[in-house]
Structure formats: structure tokens, C-alpha cells
């Protein structure tokens, strides 16, 4: 009786995962796309779901874990609601992206080694290039690009994101 109840809870919990697996017809060739959709649903890849996906696709958990850890896009830890990607491509780098990164982290109060704020609102990452080289140094807040950043503009942007300041022009 209890196991039945347990499996019911489990199947409810994995309902969304099942829908995603269904959409990709349980085809292991689509593993990356499956994980991408799971991540956009949960904002990260919870361990028990990775195991579940492995079982459902009849592959080893190692194979799923291997893919999940190979690609930069996947995260095994919860990410913030908003993701701030500071571009550290060549063009941005020579125009001072490291100062921008430092300013973002300081304004959000991130300590060394932390990338997500404790309230799970923001995750700060660097990205190799967002292709906005003409706007260097640039960063992305979710899908919005902000260019020609400096310390002052970062401060305004973070204030705005925290709901305190006014909207910041993209450039």
C-alpha cells in the first residue's frame, strides 16, 4: 500500500518530466534537448530527475550525468530566477569586462566562490561571447542585452533589478 502511494507521488512529481520525455519520444538521441527542457522547467537538473531520465531512456545514469556535466549550459545546482551573464569574449575582455564582472558581483553582495545570491534571485556567470562585440563590454540579464557597461551603469542596473532604481538604457 505504501509503495503504491510512494509511486503515485513519484509519478506526479515526474509528470512534467514524463511530458518532456514523451515529446521527444523517449529517444536517447534527443538527450541534450530533453535536459535543456528539464532545466528550463526546474532552473537546474535535480539529481533524482537525472536518474529518472536514465531509467526512462534505458541508459546508464553515468551517461546522463556525463552529458549533464559536459555542457556549460547545464547546472546541477539551483540557479537564480534571473541569470546575469557577463560577456568575457575577446572584444569585451580588452574593453574591461573583468571590472564589469567585479562590479556586478559586488553590487549583488556575492562572496568569493558564490555565484548565486542566497535568496535565489540572481546567478552571475561569465560567458565566452554573446556576439554583441559592437557593444562591448556587454552583459545579458536573462535574454536582454545591455552594452557599453561601466561600474556606474552596473550599479544602476542592479538597483533596477532589485526594484529600487529606474530602468536602465540598454546602451
Amino acid at each position: 500500500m505504501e509503495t503504491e502511494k510512494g509511486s503515485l507521488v513519484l509519478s506526479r512529481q515526474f509528470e512534467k518530466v514524463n511530458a518532456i520525455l514523451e515529446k521527444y519520444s523517449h529517444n536517447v538521441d534527443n538527450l541534450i534537448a530533453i535536459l535543456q527542457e528539464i532545466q528550463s522547467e526546474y532552473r537546474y537538473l535535480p539529481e533524482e530527475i537525472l536518474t529518472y531520465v536514465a531509467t526512462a531512456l534505458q541508459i546508464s545514469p553515468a551517461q546522463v550525468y556525463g552529458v549533464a556535466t559536459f555542457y556549460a549550459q547545464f547546472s546541477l545546482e539551483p540557479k537564480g530566477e534571473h541569470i546575469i551573464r557577463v560577456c568575457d569574449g575577446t572584444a569585451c575582455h580588452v574593453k574591461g569586462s573583468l571590472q564589469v564582472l567585479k562590479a556586478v558581483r559586488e553590487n549583488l553582495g556575492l562572496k568569493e566562490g558564490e555565484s548565486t545570491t542566497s535568496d535565489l534571485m540572481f546567478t552571475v556567470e561569465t560567458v565566452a561571447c554573446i556576439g554583441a562585440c559592437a557593444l562591448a563590454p556587454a552583459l545579458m540579464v536573462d535574454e536582454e542585452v545591455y552594452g557599453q557597461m561601466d561600474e556606474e551603469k552596473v550599479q544602476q542596473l542592479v538597483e533596477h533589478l532589485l526594484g529600487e532604481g529606474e530602468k536602465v538604457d540598454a546602451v
Partner: protein
Amino acid sequence: MRFETREELEKYIAELKNKTGKKKVLVCGGLGCLAKGAQEVFDAFKEAIEREKIAAEVEKLEENPGLVKTGCMGLCEAGPLVRIEPEEILYLRVKPEDVEEIVEKTLKDGEVVERLVYQEEVDGKVQYWSHFKDVPFYRKQVKITLRNCGTIDPQNLNEYLARDGYLALARVISEKTPDEVIEEITKSGLRGRGGGGFPTGRKWQFARVVKADKKYVICNGDEGDPGAFMDRSVMEGDPHSVLEGMAIAGYAIGAQEGYIYVRAEYPLAVKHLRKAVEDAEKAGFLGDNILGSDFSFRIIVREGAGAFVCGEETALISSIEGKRGMPNPRPPYPAYRGLWGKPTIINNVETMVNVPVIMLRGADWFRSFGTTNSAGTKTFALAGKIRNTGLVEVPMGITLRDLIFDIGGGIQNDKKFKAVQIGGPSGGCLTERHLDLPIDYDSLSGAGAIMGSGGLVVLDEDTCIPEVARFFMNFTQNESCGKCVPCREGTKHMLGLLQKVVKGEANTSDLELLEETALVVRDASLCGLGKTAPNPVLTTLRYFRDEYLDHVVYKVCPAHVCQAMREYRIDPEKCRSCAKCARVCPVSCISGRPRVPYVIDQEKCTKCGACFEACPYDSITVEWRKKENE
């Protein structure tokens, strides 16, 4: 509608062409312009044009002008860009407030709003260039790959058709055998634009002759080079050209299925490509029995998940198969055994986009651009310390000087040119004496750089060369997949050595070790990533050895970038011996006694700057260390 025959398509294109020729307002919807407020400009035009239509007395407007949001027009620096057709007037830095004036003057009366056009000082006189082809940035450009980018609405199939879209595919299917297609591409001299420069026709020929039940065409849109955005612009601004090129490739090698692998960081490109695939399927340019023939071809858009190594063709194949994106030894080449073990050709976005126009206008026409061994054009993303950052396309064989100084407008803030980094982390740094080098595959590799995908980052006197080399090595070390030892370990060691250089901890034997390691990694790595990763190190060691020696021997950073080359000193006149600096110093390198000025031990100082922040009397100064003989 669905096109069943080539004649139907030709008739439809002719009708579309009849309809055009009226006024058109093109607003650049490229990333640079959008970030600078192009959407607001677009909305203002929409509002103004709709209102003018209602007010019947001002019907001087010939007809309602078409308003189009295009892909990247190239001159990102001066965005938002607006072009008025058919006069081809280019307006720069357009704000929503300017829209009224453009509508009143240019659209109604055909006048030019002078203050918004490109201005150039010629012999002390200001010259206004209203026609976009007169603007220095565009003067030497030849647009083949970017023929539609910045001119059409990428999400509207009719706009593409009006510029002979899918006509090449229709002609190929109805007139040519696959062998004839390959012959034409071979004759055109088209070489892979992803960086390697392998002849495209030959690659297709290999896949053509292999017998297999299934074959695949892959378009590599995994533009991972930091500092490059050409493929992004093409996929966003002209997605149908990519699809048409792939379909022709599919016909030539006998494939039924194609994949476009796009970087995860390019959500807009994915969106535009998916919409284009859907529209092309509805119109009968993709899917079963294309244009009534027995040729069927499908295209699937796949998103990458963030791995630079997936730009390497065998790694890309693994990634499409849903595996870790790790490369495999070649041979077998993908043309024999590729995706799911079947013959596969992989071409870069730019290569694919060249295919339809070659089939339409002929190999000889294509060969009329560029040089004997490098036919056609190449797109470049100009970035870094250059005045006109943006997207350009030039005939092969043009010199770096023309590209950087004429088209790119020279260096920002009148600084001095120092180097140009061409080909991203796989490429090399070239110097002033290479400026007259023609840009083609062979000249560049002769100088130790590569054509690469087309990222071109200009560095000025304020850029520290060893720091840039460290930056690239940090990137490749991060992106090394770890499969082969030379790349996995070698890049890590090179990075460690470069870190020592910029921290002022290296000695001359470290430089020798760096060079030696670089050569081993280059010669022994499995895939392109490792083979080319040492290029930035090797070229900078070759052309900027003095700057390395400055860091290593004199512990000086001439560009004033490397923090470790600074010196913190306490001005004995100003110091009040409060000991605040000594208390915050994390390495306890500041000593002193009451009423005696404090002193920083330069040997121990880590240049963290904590004392500088803590001093209440501004008695601590920071200076860049100079060479002793200076």
C-alpha cells in the same frame, strides 16, 4: 501557398518584383541596433506611417511605404541604422524623435536629412554621404554572403523570394544532375568559411561517391569564437539562404536530412531559423517532393548546450547524437562515416549561404571576386579598439590595412595600433608589419595566423599582449574537452606559465618551457581545438617577445594592465604613522613605528590595494613600475 513547379515559383517571383520598387523604410533589427533602441524607432515609424495614410490630404507619399525590420546592416557602432529605399539613404544614430523629420522630408519630399547621414572630413571640409554605398565603411565592401542581411525581413518568406529566393534550388533540381552541382561548386573555388579552408566541392564529392542508405548534411552554426558574430548575423538576418544552401548540398550528395547546429547563446537565430524551416516546408521548398520533383529533404534545428569544442566537426556530430561533445580521430572522415555512422558533410553557415548564389550566377562570376586560390569574399566581425565596430564583407585579397583603417576607420580615440587578433583563440596576433598582408587562406597561415571564422579584434597600445595570450589560453583550457592528454594537460601548463608571466613571477626559462609546450600541444593534439590553441602564444612570442621580456626580466607592463607590475609606496611626508595600513595588509608587509613613516616591503607586497583604500591621509601612491634605464 505551396509551389509545385519551378514555373510557378518563377511566375510568383516576377509578380513580387513588380510590386516592389516603391518606398521602403528599413530599420536595422540587428543585436547592436536593438540594444541601442531600434525597436522604439521602428514603432515610431509605424505610428507615423499609419497616421499619414489616414490623413488623406498629405497623400504625397506615393503609396504606403513598406516598413521592414531587417537583420544586421553592419555598422553597429552608429546604430540604430535606418535605410530608405529605393534612394538607399542611410541614416545613423536615429532616435524616435528624428522619425517625424525623416517622414516629412525624405518620405514625402525626397529630401535628405543631412544631420543624420555619415559625415567625413575631406581636406578640412565636412562631406556628407547620404547614399549608403558612399559611406567609407561600405565603399570597399562586396556583399555576397550578406546579400540579403540588412535588406530583407528575415521572418518573411516573400521578402526572400523577391530577391530570387529558392530559385537556385528550383533550377538545380530541374536542370542539373548532382554531379553537375558538385562540378560547379568545385569550379567556383569555394573553400570552407569556418576556418579550415577545405575545398567545398571536394568535400561534397567524397560524400557523393559513398554508397549508403542515408546521408546527412550538417550546417555548423556553433560560432564559438569569442569576438565573432558573422554567422549569428546571417542566421538571424537571412535564414532562408542557409536552408536553400543546405537543400542544394543535400541534393548534390544524395541526403534526405539536414541538421543546423546553433549555439545556445543565440536564441534569436534559433527562433528565426525555426520559423524559416516552417515557412519553407509550407511553401514546398523543404519536405517531401520538393517543387514537384522526387527530391525530399528535411531540416532540423538543434541547439547546442555550450561547448566550444562542438565547433569541431566530429565533436559536433557526437553532440547531435545526444552525447558528450568530444571529438574522434579522423579518418574516418565524416564524409565516409559521420552522423550515426552515415556519410555526412559539415559546412559552416557562411559556406552554405554562398552556395545558392553560386548556383544562380555561376562559378565564373564567383571567381571574379577574390584571389586565385581564395575565391569570393569573407565576412569579418570587427571588434575591439576599432572605430567602426561591426559586420563587414570584403573580397579575399584585400589588405589588413584597408580592412582596419579604411573600412574600420582606424583606432578608437586616436590611439596607436598595436596588433590585430585574427581567428579568435585558434588564430594569431599580427603586427603592424603585417598590415599590408593580403587576407587569404595562404597568406594568413604563412604568417602563423589562420583565416578562422572571421573574428577580428583590434588591439591598441593600451592592450597588454601577454595578458591577451593568457586570456585566450584561459579560454581554450576551459573549453578543452579533456579527451586527449596533450591538449588537456598542455593547455593547463601553458596557462599556468602565462599566469606567472602576468603576475611577474616568471623567469626566462619559463618562456622557453612555454614555447616548447606550445609546440607539443600543437603537434600532438587530437582535434582542431588543441592543434590551434597554441597559436596565440606562438605568434605573440614571435612578434612581441620584447613585451614578454619586459614582464619576465624587468617586471614591467608597458601597457599598464598587469596589476602585479604596480608599486604601492607610502609618501613619508604625508604619512602620520596611524598604522591603519599595516593593520589591513593581508600579508603583513607594511612596517613602522609611531612618529616614523611606514614602509611597504615591495618583495612581499601582493598589490591588493587594501592599504590604499585604508589610508585616511592619501599618503599611499600607486605607480607603474618603469624599466630601470628609463
